[in-house]
């Protein structure tokens, strides 16, 4: 006799398909072609030159870790904020929906560069003194300013994510909550087990798009000299004349920066595509960008 455990429910969808592998091989081949053939033949420089990395290497690694740090800070923060704001926006309770609308419209309506400038110039004044003393006393004021600027970028992105989640919530038909209640589920159980899983699936594809934007937007922190990839690369160019750096390497530096952002955003969107596939459900597809 078969038991429930021995007779599994529907098998999960295949995550890594032939297409995934084809894509990956294409990207790697394209990258190799670019670095070893296109760049050397057209611009007469190679990205694998030891003397180039000897000078640029330290700047690159510091900058890359900075970028990782700001992505790791802003991405989760923006998802949490965006989700809460999107949820609040569809709330029937005005006290939730109205401030959420204001939040979305303000942070979506201002350029991230302006938000970053404001946050770095005046942000520290907004942090209550007790919090400054208690938690942030070990940091330099400049670093706190950059941290606040990063949070401003997260808030900008969260405004867009709030709209994604709002659309996700509104795409779930009203009958779903009604059916949940008719079964005797409490409203929060209907939310947990019926509405949110569907919202989540519908929001995943557009979220991947927004994540790519956010990762690239962290480069705006260079405007206030945050320690990240663009700023560090620019720093190097400042000391160039003294270091005997061939002029064509300026182009090499920015090519490396561009490729790095590309690899970062590409892997994040691909990773999300895997998630999408894992949770794929017939009837709950949304358009993938």
């Amino acid at each position, binding site marked *: 006799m078969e*038991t*429930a*455990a021995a007779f599994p*429910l*529907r098998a999960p969808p295949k995550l890594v398909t032939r297409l995934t592998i084809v894509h990956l091989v294409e990207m790697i081949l394209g990258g190799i072609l670019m670095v070893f053939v296109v760049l050397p033949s057209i611009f007469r420089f190679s990205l694998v030159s030891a003397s180039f990395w000897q000078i640029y290497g330290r700047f690159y690694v510091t900058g890359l870790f900075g970028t990782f740090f700001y992505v790791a800070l802003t991405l989760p923060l923006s998802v949490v904020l965006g989700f809460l704001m999107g949820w609040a926006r569809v709330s029937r309770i005005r006290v939730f929906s109205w401030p959420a609308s204001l939040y979305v419209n303000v942070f979506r309506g201002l350029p991230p560069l302006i938000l970053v400038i404001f946050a770095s110039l005046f942000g520290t004044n907004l942090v209550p003194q007790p919090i400054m003393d208690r938690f942030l006393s070990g940091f330099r004021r400049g670093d706190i300013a950059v941290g606040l600027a990063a949070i401003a970028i997260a808030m900008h992105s969260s405004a867009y994510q709030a709209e994604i989640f709002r659309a996700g919530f509104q795409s779930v*038909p009203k*009958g*779903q909550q*009604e*059916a*949940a*209640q*008719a*079964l*005797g*589920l*409490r409203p929060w*159980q209907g939310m947990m*087990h*019926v509405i949110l*899983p*569907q919202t989540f*699936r519908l929001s995943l594809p557009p979220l991947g798009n927004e994540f790519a934007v956010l990762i690239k937007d962290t480069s705006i922190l260079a405007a206030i000299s945050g320690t990240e990839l663009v700023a560090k690369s620019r720093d190097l160019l400042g000391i160039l004349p003294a270091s005997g750096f061939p002029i064509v390497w300026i182009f090499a530096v920015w090519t490396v920066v561009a490729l790095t952002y590309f690899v970062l955003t590409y892997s994040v969107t691909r990773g999300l595509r895997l998630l999408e596939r894992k949770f794929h*459900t*017939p*009837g*709950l597809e949304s358009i993938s960008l």
Partner: protein
Amino acid sequence: MIRVEDIQKHFGALHVLRGITFDVQKAEAIVIIGPSGSGKSTLLRCINLLVEPDSGKVFIDGVHVNRHGIRHEWVRQQVGMVFQSFNLFTHLTAIENVTLGLTRVKGIPHDQAIEKARKLLARVGLAAKENAYPAELSGGQQQRVAIARALAMDPKAMLFDEPTSALDPEYIREVLDVMAALAREGMTMIVVTHEMGFASNVASRILFMDAGKIIEEGTAEDIFQNPKEDRTRSFVSKILR
């Protein structure tokens, strides 16, 4: 089993139910007919309190349920509901749709819930479809899963809100057959439908509603062949044609 006493319901300026009173005995199958906008769906929703009546009383198995101190969730476990648009949970397979209430509301262990759900799916003729998502099922199959989902809670009565109105003609039969079988097994049910064949063969009584009131009540023969009220006669002549 179910008693409704002088129910009134307004939606804003709209007076949807204007004093509805009726009784449903145990194992009885009642069919409610009437023009759209007459308040049939609202009446069903008042019984399981998806819609709260403005005034009047609803009794289920002798318990006055629309009063303070009675949890809505408890009431809804007593009466199952089947919707016009099925409302199956899109992200769950057929069997998961049936087990959700069992595990989350009744707190039944997963294995036992699966076992029970399999029996119910077999009962509505869908044992082979347990792993299909709603989008992979026909309308008729979805509605039968919805019936199994409602039955899983062991309700004392079942409410059907135009269960075949959204179906392509070829699927209506399979759903009505399941409902007729339920009625034969002694399930108490209230069905809003315009399926006259079903009303004639299965219903113990038919209520005709118009403009928020019960206009006439009687057996299929009374209502379809010898309606007393003009409004009943004119409605019946339209749907029987």
